[in-house]
C-alpha cells in the first residue's frame, strides 16, 4: 500500500524546522516588490490544444538551488558542491550542473523560479501546490489531476478503458487527491514497479495465473454467481456486471498492454534510465499516447534533511535522464504540443546548508521559494520566469503562486475556470482556485503561453 518511504528523520524535526525557519522566511511580499514585471499585453486567448498532463511530483520538496535555480556565487555554504552550473542550449539559461542532459533540451521547457506559498508542512504545502487553495474555509478542494480527469475524462469525450487519472505507482497518501469530489475522481494507482522484470499493475497485469485458468475462473464465477442471477436486472447488479466486463477487457484485451513496457526497444528503455522513475516516465509517455488525460508520477525521496548532497548524487542523474528523454520522445512523437509536463515538489529547501549534527549537510523545508519546470501543451520553452535573491532565499521578481499556474493549465486545456464542480452539499464552487489573500502574486503565467 502507498506508504511514505522517506520520512524517517528525528521525531521533532518537522516542528523544529517549522518554528526555526519562520523568522527568517519573509513569507509575505510587499505589493511594490511583487509587481516587478507586468503581464504580457492583452491578446486573443490561444486556442487550447493541451490534451494531457504529466505531473512529476517530487515528493518531499526538491531544493530549488540544486535543480532549476542554481546560485553559484553564493558559495559552498549555500550551494554545496554545485557551484558550476550547466549552461543550456538557450542563451543565458542555466540549470544545476547535475542536469547536463536536461541542459541540452532547455528549448523545450521553461523554468519558474519564483514559485511561492509560504507553507512549510508537507501535507499542507502539497495541498496548496496541487489545489491552488490555501485552506481554512472548511472545504477540501480536489487537486488539479482530479479536476482535469473529471472534465477531460469520460465527461469530456475520453473513451479509453484505462482510467483517466493514473498514478505511477503509489497514491500520495494523507493528501486526498480528489477532495470533495470523492472517489469518482480519485486516481488509479498502478502499484508494482515499472523497472521490475515485469510491470505488474495491480488488477490489470495477471501474475501467476495462466490465461486459460483466468478464463476458466471467469466462466466459473458466472455460473456460481447465484445472487446476481436471482436479482437479475437490478441496477446494482447491472453496474457490477458492467465493471466486470470492463475488467476482463483490460485484463485479457489489448488496452492493458499499455503497461507492458517490454514492447519497447531496450535502447528506449535504457534511454529513460533503468530505475523506477525513468521507467515511470516511459509508462507515462505510453499512457498519454493512448489519450489518458492525467498521469502523475509520484517520485519520492526529496525530503533530504540529512546528508542532502549524497541523496542528490543519486536522484539528480535519474531525474536528468528520465525527464530529458521524456521531453525528447514526446517532442519526436508530436505529443509535446498536446502534453503539459509539470515538474514540482511541495516546497523548496533551506538555502543555507545545515552542516551541523545530526543533519551533516542537510536541507530543511522552505516555503517562500521553490522552482518548477513546465513544458508542452502550449507552454513556451526556453524561458525563465521570475527570480530569487542572490542566495535563493526570497522571490525578487514575478512571484507565482500555485493558483496562478493552475489557472494557466486550465487555459491551455480549455477548462473554464468558472466551471462548477459537483459538490456533495450542492455548493456552487468554481473549478479554479481564487487568488491567494495573503500573498501578492503577479497572476497567471501568461508570459509562458
Amino acid at each position, binding site marked *: 500500500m502507498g506508504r511514505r518511504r522517506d520520512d524517517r528523520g528525528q521525531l521533532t524535526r518537522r516542528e523544529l524546522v517549522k518554528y526555526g525557519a519562520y523568522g527568517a522566511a519573509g513569507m509575505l511580499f510587499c505589493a511594490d516588490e511583487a509587481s516587478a514585471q507586468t503581464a504580457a499585453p492583452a491578446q486573443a486567448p490561444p486556442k487550447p490544444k493541451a490534451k494531457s498532463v504529466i505531473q512529476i511530483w517530487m515528493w518531499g520538496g526538491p531544493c530549488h538551488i540544486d535543480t532549476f535555480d542554481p546560485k553559484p556565487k553564493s558559495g559552498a555554504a549555500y550551494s554545496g558542491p554545485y557551484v558550476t552550473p550547466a549552461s543550456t542550449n538557450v542563451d543565458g539559461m542555466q540549470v544545476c550542473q547535475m542536469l547536463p542532459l536536461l541542459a541540452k533540451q532547455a528549448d523545450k521547457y521553461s523554468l519558474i523560479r519564483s514559485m511561492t506559498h509560504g507553507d512549510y508542512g508537507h501535507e499542507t504545502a502539497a495541498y496548496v501546490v496541487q489545489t491552488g487553495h490555501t485552506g481554512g474555509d472548511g472545504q477540501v478542494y480536489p487537486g488539479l489531476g482530479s479536476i482535469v480527469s473529471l472534465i477531460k475524462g469520460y465527461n469530456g469525450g475520453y473513451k479509453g478503458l484505462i482510467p483517466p487519472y493514473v498514478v505511477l505507482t503509489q497514491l500520495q497518501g494523507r493528501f486526498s487527491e480528489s477532495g470533495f469530489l470523492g472517489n469518482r475522481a480519485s486516481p488509479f494507482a498502478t502499484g508494482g514497479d515499472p523497472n521490475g522484470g515485469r510491470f505488474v499493475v495491480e488488477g490489470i497485469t495477471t501474475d501467476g495465473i495462466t490465461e486459460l485458468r483466468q478464463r476458466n475462473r471467469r466462466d466459473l464465477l458466472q455460473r456460481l454467481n447465484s445472487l446476481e442471477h436471482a*436479482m437479475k436486472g437490478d441496477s446494482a447488479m447491472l453496474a457490477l456486471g458492467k465493471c466486470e466486463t470492463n475488467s476482463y477487457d483490460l485484463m485479457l484485451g489489448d488496452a492493458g498492454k499499455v503497461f507492458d513496457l517490454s514492447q519497447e526497444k531496450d535502447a528506449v528503455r535504457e534511454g529513460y534510465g533503468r530505475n523506477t522513475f525513468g521507467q515511470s516516465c516511459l509508462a507515462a509517455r505510453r499512457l498519454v499516447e493512448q489519450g489518458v488525460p492525467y498521469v502523475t508520477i509520484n517520485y519520492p525521496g526529496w525530503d533530504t534533511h540529512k546528508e542532502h548532497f549524497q541523496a542528490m548524487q543519486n536522484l539528480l542523474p535519474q531525474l536528468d535522464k528520465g525527464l530529458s528523454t521524456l521531453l525528447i520522445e514526446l517532442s519526436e512523437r508530436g505529443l509535446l504540443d498536446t502534453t503539459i509536463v509539470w515538474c514540482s515538489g511541495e516546497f523548496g529547501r533551506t538555502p543555507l546548508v545545515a552542516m551541523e549534527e545530526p543533519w551533516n549537510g542537510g536541507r530543511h523545508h522552505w516555503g517562500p521559494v521553490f522552482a518548477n519546470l513546465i513544458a508542452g501543451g502550449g507552454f513556451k520553452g526556453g524561458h525563465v520566469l521570475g527570480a530569487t535573491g542572490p542566495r535563493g532565499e526570497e522571490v525578487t521578481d514575478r512571484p507565482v503562486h500555485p493558483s496562478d499556474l493552475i489557472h494557466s493549465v486550465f487555459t491551455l486545456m480549455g477548462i473554464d475556470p468558472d466551471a462548477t464542480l459537483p459538490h456533495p452539499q450542492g455548493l456552487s464552487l468554481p473549478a479554479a482556485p481564487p487568488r491567494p489573500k495573503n500573498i501578492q502574486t503577479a497572476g497567471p503565467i501568461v508570459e509562458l503561453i
Partner: protein
Amino acid sequence: MFIATNGGQSRIKPSVVTDEALRKPYETEERITSKTQIDFLVLKKLRQLGIEPSRICSDEVFVRRAYLDVTGTLPTIVESREFPEERSPNKRRELIENLLESEAFSNYWSLHFCDLLRVKAEYPVDLWPNATQAYERWIRTAIRANMPYDQFARQLLTSSGSNFRTPQVNFYRAIPGRNPIDIAKTVALIFMGTRAEKWPSALLQRMSTFFSQVGYKSTMEWKEEIVLRDPTKLAPRDQTCLFPDGKAITLPPEQDPRTIFADWLVSPHNPWFARAAVNRIWYWLLGRGIVNEPDDIRPDNPASNPELLSYLEREFVSSRFDLKHIFRLILQSTTYQLASIPRSIDPKAAANFASYPIRRLEAEVLLDAINDITGTNEVYVSYTPEPYTWVPTDQRTVQLADGSITSAFLEMFGRPSRDSSLSIERTNEVSTDQRLHLLNSSHINGKILYGPGLNALTPSGKKPENIITDIYLRILSRTPTEDEMKIGLEYSSPKNSDPKSAAMDIAWALINSAEFLYRH
C-alpha cells in the same frame, strides 16, 4: 476512478421476474406480520400503497446479515452450519442479543461514529496521531458501555481540557474553521441531522453565539492542545442567542454557553435530537433513512413514514436515549428480516422498506472479511504526521483510529474522507478498479492462494464435496445448492484440474460473487 453506477438503491426493472427456484437459498415462505410496532407501521404504509413486501429471509441469510450488520464480521463455519439447524423459536432474537453484547459490536459501530465525528490524524484538520488514538478510544469505550446518547452528546459539546487527557474535546478540534459558525453547522449536522447552511443566516449567526467562547491553547507538551471556555471572546452586548427553534436567550455571564445549548439539545422535548439519532440508526441498518438523506432533515424533505419515525423517537426518549434499544427494536422487526429479492416493482417500494436493500460491504468490513477467510492481515504504518503510527498486525481494519492512514484498498473501496460528517462521504459504489483488484490483483490472489485460511480448508485427501461445502460456509455462510455443488464438483474433477487449484478457484469465484460483496 471509473464508476459505472449511481450505486444507490436497488431497482428492479418491471420486465424482470425472478424465478422461484433462484430465490430459494435466500428467502422463506413466511410473510411479514405485524409482530412488532415497527412491522405494524411499515406494513400499514405498504398496504396503503399496494406494495407487496418481500418474504422473510432464510436463516442462512439472516445469520450472515446479523453478523455483518451488528458486528461487521462474518459468522464462522460452525455458526453458519448450526444456526439453520437450531430449533429454538427465539433463535434469531437470541443471536441478536449475543451480537449486541459482543466486543465486535462496539468495534464496528465506533467506526461509524468515528466517521461522523471526523476522527483522523491530519488534513484538513490536524487532530494529530496521539489525540486521534485517544478520541477513538473514548468513542469506542462509550459505545461499549452503551453510554446514553444524551450524555455522549453532552460530553462532546461541553468538555474542556487536554486533547490527550479529555479526548472528547477533540470534537471542537475536528472542525476546520474553528469559528463559531462552522462549529454551529457541525453541531447541527451531527446532532440534529440538518444542514444549517440552509437556515436563515441570522438564525445560524445567533445560534453560533453559543460557541463563540470556545478557545484553544497549546501547552509545553508536543501536539497537546487545550480546549476551554474563553469568556473574553464575547462582548457582553452580543450575548443574545437563538436556539435553532427560534427561541431567544440572553447568556448568563457565569455559565459556559455551550452547556446552555447542550441542555436545550438533549431535552426530551427537543424534536431534533432524538429524530436525528434514530433516523441515522435506521439508515445505517436499512441503507436508507426514514428521512433521506439522514443528515438532511428539514420541513420540505418529509419522512417516508412519519408514524414510524415518531414511534422510534418516543422509544429513544423513553429509554433514556439508549442506542442499543433502538438497534434491538429494528433488528428484531420482521421488516429488518425481509429478504433482499423484491416482490414489487413499485418505485416507492425502496423508500417504504418493502425489502432489505443490498449494499456493497464497506471498504473496512470487506477487507476484514477477506482477511478472516484467508487467515491474513494488513500492515498499516504511517510516518507522517509524527509521531509515527504502527498498527499491530492483528488489529482489524474496522478498528483503525486514524481514518486518513494511507491504504490504496480503502481509498478504492470508498472509505470516507472524514472531512464533512456527511453520510454520503462513504461510497459503496462499484467501480472497475475495485473489480480489477478483487478479480486479479496480487494482493487478493496472494491471500487466497497462499494465506493459511483457505489452505486449511482444502487439505489433500479431503473429499471434494466437503471442501466445497466448507468453502461455501466460510465465504457465503451457507451450504451450496445442489446445482452449485454439481458445478463445483465438475470443476474439481481430476480431468479438469488439480484438486487444490480447483478448490482455490471456487473460493476465488465466491469471493468475487455478488453474494459475498453485498449485504443482502
